[in-house]
């Protein structure tokens, strides 16, 4: 083991370099003075300033955050319910099918999810008149749909690990089922809820393809705006924007992974 540790060291360095050099160079160039994205000409934070005065980007960021917040919250509730059914209910007809289907959005290409949701929304509108047109609501519904699968999986694994005796013990000591849920089950699965929520939040912020399909006028998310800007050429303020997003996502991921670890007191 010790003998070939140099090999492991080099492999580790190369692996991390491959992953992080593009990100680091992007962060560095976001502080570039020059208008040319790939030529360094001195340190400056002017692109951040320009970014903050761009109403189009700020508006899109605000829309993205709203969508991410609402869809993550909805996904957390629905995903937890799904996990509850999958873990707690005794065998019922179609349980295996359901637990297989819950993971489908994880492997389904975004294009297909986006297209199928778009078709659904159009036919729903023509039948019940809701959702009227496409926009914020449809993006939220779409993001909730696929985020929910992630939440269900995270919560499900937490609930399987949980000692079923805990809830029975609470029942036995005189707590009614609703009380048991809030006193015992919820605190036990809360780390999974937090990480599921953060995961959904970042997935929603990230998504370009599905949002492009189900979006409508006046509801351009940040990735959509970036993508359309980059088509006209990469400008340094996009680097600044990307850096901000990386920082936010990194914080989210770190918190989520800290929540997933078993808590050790003392």
């Amino acid at each position, binding site marked *: 083991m010790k003998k070939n540790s140099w090999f492991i060291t080099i492999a580790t360095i190369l692996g991390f370099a491959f992953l992080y050099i593009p990100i680091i160079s992007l962060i560095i160039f976001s502080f570039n003075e020059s208008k040319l994205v790939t030529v360094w000409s001195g340190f400056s934070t002017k692109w951040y300033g320009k970014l903050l005065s761009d109403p189009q980007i700020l508006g899109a960021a605000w829309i993205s955050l709203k969508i991410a917040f609402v869809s993550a919250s909805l996904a957390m509730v629905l995903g937890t319910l799904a996990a509850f059914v999958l873990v707690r209910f005794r065998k019922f007809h179609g349980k295996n099918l359901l637990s297989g289907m819950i993971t489908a959005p994880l492997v389904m290409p975004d294009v297909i999810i986006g297209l199928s949701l778009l078709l659904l929304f159009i036919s729903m509108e023509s039948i019940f008149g809701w959702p009227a047109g496409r926009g914020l609501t449809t993006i939220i519904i779409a993001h909730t749909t696929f985020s929910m699968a992630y939440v269900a999986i995270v919560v499900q694994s937490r609930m399987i690990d949980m*000692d079923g*005796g*805990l809830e*029975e*013990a*609470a*029942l*036995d*000591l*005189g*707590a*009614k089922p609703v*009380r048991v849920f809030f*006193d*015992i089950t919820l*605190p*036990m699965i809360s780390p999974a809820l937090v990480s599921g929520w953060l995961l959904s939040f970042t997935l929603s912020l990230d998504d370009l393809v599905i949002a492009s399909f189900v979006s409508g006028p006046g509801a351009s998310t940040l990735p959509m705006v970036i993508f359309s800007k980059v088509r006209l050429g990469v400008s340094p303020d996009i680097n600044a924007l990307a850096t901000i997003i990386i920082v936010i996502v990194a914080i989210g991921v770190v918190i989520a992974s800290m929540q997933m670890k078993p808590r*050790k*007191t*003392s």
Partner: protein
Amino acid sequence: MQNQQPAATNPKPWLDPNEQPFIRISNLTKKFDDFTAVDNVSLDIYRQELFCLLGGSGCGKSTLLRMLAGFETPTSGRIEIDGQDVANVPPYDRPTNMMFQSYALFPHMSVEKNVAYGLMRDGMAKSEANDRVNEMLKLVQLDGFATRKPDQLSGGQRQRVALARSLIKQPKLLLLDEPLGALDKKLREETQFELINIQESLGVTFIVVTHDQEEAMTLSTRIGVMDVGEIVQIGEPRDIYEFPQSRFVADFIGSVNMFEGNVVDDAENYVRIHCKQADCHIHVAHGVSCTENQKLWFAIRPEKMTLSREKPESNYNFVEGKVDEIAYMGNLSVFRIKLTSGDIIRVTKSNLLRRDEDNISWDETVYLSWEDTAGVVLMQ
């Protein structure tokens, strides 16, 4: 803790036909799909008993306990606790509490909060609950640990917290699922006696589920031995050990040597059995309701046989064999004797002397003999 129940006047209420049972289980059956976990069990348990349900894994003892607690619904049959039919009473309204095998302590609550949980759900005032909790923690010798979290405690301390939490509501009936299973041997022995003391001082009726026969023998007033969903024998520890009613019980509790034989002489006050396999004649000094030539079994415990080099004078109640294996265990030695038929007989000998110059050793030819009241005749 006040004793709410009247002190038991009769130490063995199950022998008194006029005594009212505290728990009455009648024709209780539980099926999971096609599998019958508990099969038509009827059982009476009396106030202040410490009743053990003993059996191997999968014998249905835990399912029976869970039906008493209300976590499983019986497929058929009745459970009455203190005269009340509890069939439709949910676990949170039953006068029972349970101590779980895994202890099931709430990991996000301190010891204090864990123990107080039951009282808080009953809506007891905080100050009163605090007093009760402190008193209870003192009883289980955990005062000073009130603010710790369960993961800061040792296995033995967790076990006590679980016990305290299940006793705090002063249940009429406490159900204990393998209460000492997770403790090491030494701690288990100490805790057994503590459990008995607590049970006696609080006067609560205990039903303990265990697979450990030694634990059942030490703890209980009576034992119910279970096998594949049925209770095969109920009795005081001594009855179960000395007078097993079937080969299963004889074999499950302690170790036993079994001789299969046929009745050759059936008299009013004795029976003679011939065991072909071991080529020995067995004389039993009491009448057995059997017919001549009937096949039956003679069971005898290893400690009830005598080991010697000299051939006994009588021509029955002994076998001849060679010492195959000796295990020195400190307080006693276990000898495995191989008969000419190839059967192995276990016999134990107390090591009364610290040095035994003349001890029987490997490959010696020896004789095992026994009194004519030492064994049990079994029909099934």
